[in-house]
């Protein structure tokens, strides 16, 4: 995992570019001191660091547009940044690019209960959206574990998920519209306060485009009525296989819990040592959340207990009150931090597999861990097959970083081989960029890049992310007409 060599011609123009930006957007904050830029030299993938040319913090859409128009005219690269919590290096800065920070666009613009939506600027944190409407009995459903820090703009760019996306969907299923600025400074709207944007679904493809298609300057999110009852179910199993079978049976049985999380023994041990949620000792701990009306939750809890028992659960326990529910979830929520304390460094992988492959994939991951001589702990969003193996290492020790990266790549290749994908929620970014050919054919990858060309013909927005190789748009757009065996008979050439 490394940054490409930077374009020295751009880096050499640093002073001129900073002055140019200040002239183009006089009210925009431009940070250029070396000290201050240290705060902006990486995102949450902190093993890759580089200071940007400068950091630019616009205060409104017009300033975003002015900055982009300047960069477009002057051939300067732009790396967008929300809160910088990307785990895949989505917002890793570059020395030949300005870092465009959206954190000052931090106001909620409109809370529209009648139409069940919120209009917000992109720098607002995910959690603030729920906070803004919970008094009226609503919430914003996608809830990444980073929700108190990450921005809604970053969520749109990454199509982020969370514990509850099993029932409520990812970001893309929960937004209605955006205002965005194209690379040349053109401001446009996609969607609105209604479902289905009309015409081609450009909103759908912008969501999850990792800052490579446009800068999101406003988002309209759907809000959902908060279910009156939430209950957690704690299930212990003697093996991952049994827990995996339970997950499959629950889903196939027509139950959609709000969340369903699985932890292996290594994870549970680390969590117990950290905050003692009282999971008990078992090879696999499964926590499910049921939500809805009381009748619904009672009914589902009954069915789920039966299924778990049938799958060989050692014990099944329902949370009796809100405090107990919170306590059960706390352990899961601090899992990364708890496991992270066991090693100097940690990387969090993020593949998705078909649910039923879970036991086999886990066994293989543990085998790989032995091969690479590294520790690994596993937490899964089991309900949707999203794995988060946490690889533990010490970057200061001999070749541990290289081994950890190779281990991580092997895990993701395994996910793809099992019918899954490279990333379930963290995005490709810099981290998984070079693995894209494992999942996509050459033409499939080219098609994605052509799509990017439609938005950004010079690849100025977040260059070097997602795609392993840079192709010029002119080359990508060329049609190679070949004379094949097939011809349309009777039809003249026009």
């Amino acid at each position, binding site marked *: 995992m490394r940054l490409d060599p930077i374009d020295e011609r751009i880096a050499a123009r640093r002073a001129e570019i900073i002055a140019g930006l200040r002239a183009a957007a006089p009210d925009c904050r431009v940070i250029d001191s070396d000290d201050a830029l240290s705060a902006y030299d990486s995102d949450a993938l902190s093993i890759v660091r580089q200071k940007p040319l400068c950091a630019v913090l616009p205060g409104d859409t017009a300033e975003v547009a002015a900055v982009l128009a300047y960069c477009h005219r002057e051939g300067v690269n732009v790396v967008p940044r929300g809160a910088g919590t990307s785990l895949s290096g989505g917002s890793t800065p570059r020395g030949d690019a300005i870092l465009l920070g959206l954190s000052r666009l931090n106001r909620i613009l409109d809370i529209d209960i*009648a139409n*069940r939506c919120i209009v917000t600027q992109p720098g607002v944190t995910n959690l603030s959206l729920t906070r803004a409407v919970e008094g009226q*009995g609503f919430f914003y459903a996608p809830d990444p574990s980073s929700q108190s820090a990450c921005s809604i703009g970053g969520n749109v760019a990454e199509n982020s998920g969370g514990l509850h996306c099993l029932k409520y*969907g990812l970001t893309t299923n929960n937004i209605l519209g955006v205002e965005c600025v*194209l690379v040349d400074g053109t401001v*446009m709207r996609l969607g*609105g306060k*209604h*479902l*289905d944007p*009309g*015409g*081609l*679904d*450009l909103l*759908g*493809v912008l969501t999850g*485009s990792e800052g490579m298609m446009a800068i999101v300057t406003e988002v309209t999110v759907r809000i959902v*009525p908060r279910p009156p009852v939430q209950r957690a179910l704690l299930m212990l199993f003697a093996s991952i296989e049994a827990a995996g079978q339970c997950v*499959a049976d629950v889903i*196939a*049985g*027509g139950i*959609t819990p709000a969340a369903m999380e699985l932890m292996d023994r290594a994870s549970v041990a680390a969590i117990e040592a950290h905050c003692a949620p009282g999971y008990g000792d078992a090879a696999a701990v499964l926590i499910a959340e049921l939500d809805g*009306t009381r*009748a*619904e939750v*009672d*009914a589902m809890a009954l069915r789920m207990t039966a299924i778990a028992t049938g799958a060989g659960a050692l014990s099944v326990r329902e949370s009796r009150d809100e405090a107990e529910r919170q306590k059960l979830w706390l352990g899961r929520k601090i899992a990364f931090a708890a496991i992270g304390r066991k090693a100097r460094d940690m990387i969090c992988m993020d593949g*998705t597999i*078909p649910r039923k492959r879970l036991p086999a994939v886990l066994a293989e991951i543990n085998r790989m861990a032995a091969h690479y001589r590294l520790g690994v702990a596993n937490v899964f969003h089991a309900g949707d*097959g999203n794995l988060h193996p946490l690889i533990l290492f010490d970057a200061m020790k001999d070749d541990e970083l290289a081994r950890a990266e190779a281990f991580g790549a092997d895990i993701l290749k395994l996910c793809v081989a099992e*019918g*899954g*994908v*490279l990333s379930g929620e*963290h995005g490709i970014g810099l981290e998984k960029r070079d693995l894209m050919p494992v*999942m*996509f*054919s050459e*033409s499939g*990858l*080219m*098609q*994605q890049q*052509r*799509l990017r060309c*439609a938005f950004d013909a010079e690849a100025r927005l977040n260059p070097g992310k997602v795609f392993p190789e840079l192709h010029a748009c002119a080359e990508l*757009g060329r*049609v*190679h*007409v*070949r004379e*094949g*065996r*097939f011809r*349309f008979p009777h*039809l003249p*050439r*026009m």
Partner: protein
Amino acid sequence: MERFLPERAEKAAEMVAAALHQNLPLALAGAGTKAALGRPVVADAMLSSARMNRILLHEPEELVLTVEAGALLSEVNELLAKRRQMLAFEPHEMAPLLGTSGEATLGGIVAASCHGSRRFRAGGVRDHLLGFKAVNGFGEIIEGGGRVMKNVSGFDVSKLVAGSFGTLCFLTELTFRVWPVAEAEETLAISGLPDRKALEILRGIAGEPMDASGLAHLTSGASSGLSHVPDLGSGPLTLIRLEGAREAVSENAAALLLRFKALAPRRLGREVSARLWGAISALEPFAILAGAVWRLSAPPGAMQAAVSAIGPLAAIYDGAGGFCSLLVEEGLDGEAELIHETMKVHGGHATLLRANETLRGRINVFPPLESPNLMLTKRVKAAFDPRGIFNPGRMYEGV
């Protein structure tokens, strides 16, 4: 028009290459049931997926289904029903409404983004299409997405393909997530409510945490087309569908009955309910009536005002007012501009679902786009189909 029916994606790719070589525009189709949807396409040949009709994979425990694009909806529904599963976005036949013949294919359903009443709750085609394979306008076989629900690997091209009306690529294979059929289903029907009052009630319920999966209101002009469904009464008809665990559905139904006691609600059991919502999704009441049909999307709170400004012959509100289908007199060009303009003012948009070919050639079938959006749409089209050989002009001029 000559029809070409490849049986494999490779063959389809060869045909597209030949079309590129001969500079031939192609009409793309499944079974052609939606040929009368969109702007008229002028093409010499048709590329159809009708012979690519196999169901490739159904893993009930994974909730996943992969089919070739020409697979018939009826066959897929039958297969899923055996395992008590379904495509939750309620795809349906459109031939009766559009006056075409044949049975819908999944490819056509995806391309036309054909979804029904559960859309507002469960999502539409875009939300259930996990991945696809297709031939692009370069003659290459491309793929997008995957077969798992949670996937952010690369751009989400599936979203773009859903609802692209064959203007971007020729779909060959589709992977969907499927849902279990709810354990219980019941519908409450209330007759005689004025539109405004009915929509207020439906919006209120949409904001409550009971799993209402259908919230519709039909004006009398529309409800009269449902006379074949028993127990509906006459006049404007307001419908609330509940789905979920048995205990939850009966509890919620009981609560609603009590709340709306004064309005004399009736309970419709599973069978009638299923027939009824099938008919609503497919806009059956409009199939037997003459006139142009529009589909509107708007903020739910604004829909009723928008519709009354348009003044249709009949209206079917769905999704608690987030959607509405209108029947209007056909043949009035000015009507189209009025509808588009009205929807814009109310923060939504309109798409023409049914009208004669002359009209569809003259007016904006799809929502008119602001200039930057149109330019971007054209660039996106060119990124898939640079020579413009797929369904030229089906959505917009040049797209």
